[in-house]
């Protein structure tokens, strides 16, 4: 197990480095640089050259990449080109709202998807099963942006029952005022519920048909106990894998949702950083997303292994 973890950790590190490198050169490939954007609509060449010099952008890109890499090795993510703040200081306040959104979404998503999937599987192909799958597929088909606009128009602007945006919120105030979270979380749920519910259902249908469940039935195990103790653990591994992918997808979905609902989270930092060519901040976020993705997938593999030790750990 330890060897496995070391190996997976090593692979994860390589993946993170590859992502960071790719993002750096992609950002370099964007037209213009931080100095040009900072000059705005007063693009006096002399002024741009001066800003470039002040920001150290006159050094070749390869050199800047290397110095960023050595900084990273010592845990230093560098400073924002736009504000001069250390990147960590700039990101810290934005992490709260984003983490709250992600955690609350997952906390609702998991029990909901499990309940829907298991109950649908018990009477597979019955009317309830069809209703669940029709609804989740339909919701999955609507792009986040459209869904968000629709929900705001109906629940906030027409009915006035929920706040239209989360302006001025912070991580803690989001938790204190659940109504602010209602619409953003609803949008994120609608998109992620479908795949997870279907996988739980499919896994359950297979498990309920399996030999060991029939064996348990013959020994008088019935009802909830049969479902939860005997069938579910074997049904879950594919769903857990899907959940890991959902976590990746959440990062992308959250970026759209944050913009529409004015949640002051990571996405506004990212959008600003890209449009102002603030490469150190873009890099830091790329590393952050990569770390989250690698960690979540590793965790998912470990959980699958615990749930159904017979299944080989995916490597």
């Amino acid at each position, binding site marked *: 197990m330890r060897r496995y973890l070391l190996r997976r950790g090593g692979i994860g590190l390589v993946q993170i480095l590859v992502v960071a490198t790719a993002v750096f050169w992609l950002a370099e490939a*964007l*037209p*213009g640089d931080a100095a*040009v*954007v900072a*000059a*705005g*609509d*007063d*693009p*006096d*060449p*002399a*002024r*741009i050259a*001066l*800003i470039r010099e*002040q920001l150290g952008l006159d050094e070749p890109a390869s050199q800047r990449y290397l110095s960023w890499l050595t900084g990273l090795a010592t845990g230093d993510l560098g400073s924002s080109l*736009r*504000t001069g*703040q250390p990147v960590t200081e*700039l990101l810290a*306040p*934005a992490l709260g709202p984003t983490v709250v959104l992600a955690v609350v979404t997952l906390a609702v998503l998991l029990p909901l998807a499990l309940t829907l999937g298991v109950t649908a599987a018990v009477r597979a192909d019955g009317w309830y099963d069809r209703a669940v799958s029709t609804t989740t597929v339909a919701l999955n088909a609507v792009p986040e942006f459209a869904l968000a*606009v629709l929900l*705001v128009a109906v629940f*906030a*602007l027409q009915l*006035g029952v929920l*706040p*239209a*945006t989360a*302006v*001025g919120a*912070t991580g803690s105030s989001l938790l204190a005022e659940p109504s602010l979270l209602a619409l953003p979380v609803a949008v994120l749920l609608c998109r992620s519920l479908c795949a997870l519910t279907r996988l739980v259902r499919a896994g359950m249908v297979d498990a309920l048909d399996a030999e060991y469940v029939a064996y348990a039935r013959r020994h008088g195990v019935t009802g909830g106990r049969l479902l939860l103790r005997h069938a579910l653990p074997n049904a879950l591994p594919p769903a857990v894998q899907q959940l890991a992918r959902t976590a990746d997808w959440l990062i992308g979905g959250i970026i759209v949702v944050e*913009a*529409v*609902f*004015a949640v*002051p989270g990571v996405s*506004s*930092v990212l*959008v*600003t950083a890209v*449009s*102002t*060519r603030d490469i150190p901040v873009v890099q830091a976020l790329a590393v952050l997303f990569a770390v989250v993705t690698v960690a979540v997938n590793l965790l998912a593999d470990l959980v699958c292994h615990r749930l159904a030790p017979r299944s080989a750990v995916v490597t």
Partner: protein
Amino acid sequence: MPLPRLTRRAVLARAGLAGAGLAGAATLLGACGRGAADSAASGDQPRRGGDLAVAFQTGGSQETLDPHAASLFVDGARGKALFDKLVDLAGDMTPVLRLAETLEPDDEARVWRATLREATFHDGSPVTADDVLYSFARILEPDSGRRAAAQLAPLDLDASRAVDARTVELVLDRPVAEFATALAAFGAWIVPAGSEDFTAPVGSGPFRFGSFTPGGSLVVERFDDYWEGAPHLDTVEFVPVNEETARINALVGGQVGYAHDLSVTSARTYADESRVEILAAPGSLMHAFAMKLDRPPFDDPHVRAAFRLLADRTELVDTALAGMGEVGNDLFGKGLRFYADHLPQRERDLDQARDLLDRAGADGLSVTLHTAEAGGGLVDAAALFAEQAAQAGVDVRVEVGDADTFWADSFADGAISSYRSGVMPIATHIGNRLLSDASQNITRWQDEQFDDRYAEMQRTVDDDARGEMLGEMQQQLHESCGLLVWGFADWLVGTADGVHGVQGAPPNTLEWARFDRVWRD
């Protein structure tokens, strides 16, 4: 088919400000009278108390409260709440005295003497001549790239001095008759002498600092000892909302009482909505195509003249600005002080345009028009102009570039590109963009006689005489410069029901984002 126009209940800053006529010769307006017309319910008595949340775009802001580092609208609005300038500008760019109680030039417009009002900073200390000199020295620090530095550049700091605590003598290295408007430059705020740390800034503005989270909200509180009288509101909270959709939603949903910089689409959607009011400030944003005079085909004046006759300005305004604007006449500053409105409006004339192109030997001409989504209406206008040009057999190819770097790219490359500008005094526009050595000279307009005329204008203290010279210069520009000014867009902000005292005003002018005159039901 033209769209119905919105009714403009905004107070127009055309005939000077409410309660103050146009400035007479060599005198400046005093501070604008109290109780500026409320757009919705004039006659209502302002009520004291209440909080107001205001939504601005902050993406790309430095997120510092250092007023001299200001670069975006939100910086301007925050700065205005916390600080004062000596002078500000009315909607038509007439200087209005603020911290300065009097401002007098000598006969050569080289030495300007200002006396200060009895004003105090938020820490109780008086505003003095030393604070003024310190602030200007800080703005002019070399290599600091501070926004107001270009306009205050003529200041000779060594020669300038404090005559007494409330009198300051500002000496210039050249005559600048328009120096009052330079004192109103964006970012020319007065800070207490010695200020370096702006984490909890102290100013003399109508609101004192409450709390600030970089990237988040700024809360400011009423300053009871403000020289112009205490604001009505208890607090104003500036909340960052970068998406326009979210700004209008927050306003309609009642989460904010004021939303800055709304789109034409939002203005039309909510025109009849009782929960919000859309305020339009006409003439706020010039829209143009900039032709570079130093390269073909626009080095030929015939080609420039022809292009100006290709444009159907009314159609451009109705389509690209959805009718929320007015047509331009190839000159900057429609409606502003000293604007040459005696010049005839240029109309479309395809026959004459073809004739001019023939004479230039530019038959079957093909040019690339550079544009980008760097602002509302830019790409639409470029595409429409290309269609209009095609009707005269001129091939205009629209190339949409990167929005973030568009201004720098279009300044350096290409022969013709989309161009736009907010309001500023006409003399400032000429000084920044049309002199031979001007750093923002996108059209490469270079004319020695014109430069001399400008210098002479800056030596002329008499307003009427100066206006006449500016009129002649504009006539020359109207005939042959590189700007095809097709329209002026309204600037749109919104207020929630029950918020009073907000005026539609061009960005960065005195009445814009002026929350000390705002009250709530």
